[in-house]
């Protein structure tokens, strides 16, 4: 029996759609732009409710990023919407110069990140976006775990002053965060306490870490599970405190090793409390076509992958 329960499976992108609508109702300065993926980003409800504050920009992502930067001058809070691939790599220089360096209050909402995009294949399965975004000064990077947390993170992003990258996915995943839980940018959540190993996960991997904890418990291993929804700024204190308690760490993410959450955690540990660490992530390769479950299994971004990494890291203590 898992220590965390969920009521239903829902996609995180729908959490964004719901959060955007609520943020729009709270603040009339919230506006949204979409590059021909309104349905995929679940932005329809916002468009229907606030047609004058919704800008369909067509398949022109570079222009969308620049427009979003421009909209901030005069007080608007723009959310851009497209797939994570087209939200980052395709428009990196526009984000770098017009949004991050210019420190504009733009929220980049990026769906279909990672392998779980599935059958469309590697052209669309970006596994480098966290790295690109966290490298940019002024940029906040958020990767929520489930529907409720994505909704809350979207509302928090609207209330936060500064550029934010919001990453979410395509498939339906267990919705376990309490609906009334407020999202605090930069604060990790210890969702299961343990003593033998710390599992630090982000996005879809948080539920997989919860499943892994159950298997580990059956093996007599007490795992602490941390939901690291904000990758930048990273909650260094939470990492240090937990690592000092358990003595070893596993990170888990739907992203490359290079530039991912794991590297950020390793830096915090190395600089503060050197601790054995293993990382569950994609090992310097592109994805491919397949179902989300098949791909996560093949690339080792799975419950088994986490359990194996935990056993390995414990042996290194």
């Amino acid at each position, binding site marked *: 029996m898992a220590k965390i329960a969920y009521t239903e499976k829902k996609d995180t992108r729908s959490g964004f759609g719901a959060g955007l609508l609520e943020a729009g109702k709270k603040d009339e300065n919230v*506006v949204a732009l979409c590059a021909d993926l309104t349905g995929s980003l679940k932005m329809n409800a916002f468009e229907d409710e606030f047609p*004058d*504050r919704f*800008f369909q*920009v*067509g398949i*022109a992502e*570079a*222009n*969308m*990023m*620049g*427009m*979003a*930067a*421009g*909209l*901030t*001058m*005069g*007080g*608007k809070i*723009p959310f851009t919407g497209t797939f994570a691939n087209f939200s980052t790599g395709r428009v990196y*220089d*526009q984000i*770098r*110069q*017009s949004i991050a*360096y*210019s*420190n*504009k209050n733009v929220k980049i909402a990026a769906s279909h990140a990672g392998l779980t995009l599935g059958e469309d294949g590697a052209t669309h399965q970006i596994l480098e976006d966290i790295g690109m975004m966290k490298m940019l000064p002024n940029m906040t990077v958020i990767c929520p775990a489930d529907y409720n947390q994505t909704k809350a993170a979207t509302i928090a992003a609207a209330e936060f002053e500064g550029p934010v990258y919001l990453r979410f996915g395509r498939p339906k995943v267990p919705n376990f965060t309490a609906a009334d839980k407020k999202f605090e940018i930069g604060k990790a959540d210890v969702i299961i306490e343990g003593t033998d190993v710390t599992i630090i996960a982000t996005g879809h991997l948080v539920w997989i870490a919860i499943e892994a904890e159950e298997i580990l418990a059956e093996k007599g291993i007490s795992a602490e599970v941390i939901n690291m929804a904000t990758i930048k700024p990273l909650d260094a204190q939470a990492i240090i405190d937990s690592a000092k308690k358990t003595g070893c760490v596993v990170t888990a993410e739907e992203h490359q090793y290079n530039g991912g959450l794991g590297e950020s955690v390793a830096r915090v540990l190395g600089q503060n409390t050197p601790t054995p660490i293993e990382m569950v992530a994609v090992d310097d390769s592109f994805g491919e076509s397949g179902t989300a479950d098949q791909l996560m299994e093949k690339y080792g971004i799975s419950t088994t992958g986490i359990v194996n990494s935990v056993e390995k890291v414990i042996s290194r203590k």
Partner: protein
Amino acid sequence: MAEISEMKNVCSQVRRDIVRMVHAVNSGHPGGSLGCVEFFTALYFEVMNHDPKNFTMDGLDEDMFFLSNGHISPVWYSVLARSGYFEVSELATFRLLNSRLQGHPATEEGLEGIRIASGSLGQGLSVAIGAALTKKLNGEDSIVYTLHGDGEMQEGQIWEAAIYAAAKKVDNLISSIDFNGQQIDGSTEDVMSLGDLKGKWQAFGWDVMESNGNDMEDVVAKLKEAKTRTGKEKPVMIIMTTTMGNGVDFMMKDHSWHGIAPNDEQLADALNQLSETLGDY
């Protein structure tokens, strides 16, 4: 309202500022800067509704200007200072360590008058469209202005923005192109011909005008005419013919002055051609 003769005096001083600024740090872009002096002077001393002493990022109820070809920062910095955004003496810090006058315009150091970083080309039109949309949402009748290089027209993002502005009737926007026919590697004709530039913008759905960008009277007249053509469901484009290096004879019509500074002797030669009308910084 500024007299044309007064604006010509400003132009002469701005040209002195430009060559002195790039000479002092032996870097920067004098050619395009010198070619756009009349445009900037017209905008900041006559055409735009703006408040130099009370600059805000939001610029509510003010016209806004975005420089998309950020490398011609010397002319912008000079005109911003000469029109009262900051002290003229600060021009002496251009491109120096810890200066607010970065090589390319930036917001990070808080220089009054700058609302977005530019330098990586092709981005300013999109930004201006966003700002223009915010003015519409806020119920303002203010106008957003931009300037672009002609070489910059080779960037794809420009045309994404061009389609958007026409399709969505962004008609509180007046853009200009510094059509000097030169870019770093040579003439735009040789590097990658822009073809029928006017026809292209017309085909994209813009209301296209032309001006003689180094004729003070014509620049002012065309910008004022452009204002009368806003609010008519089309964005306005002014293709402004200029001479790179205008005002300094040895810099004119030579693309090599795009991004190099004059030496001591060349500076003296240039300054001999430009009256010190308002006092050097």
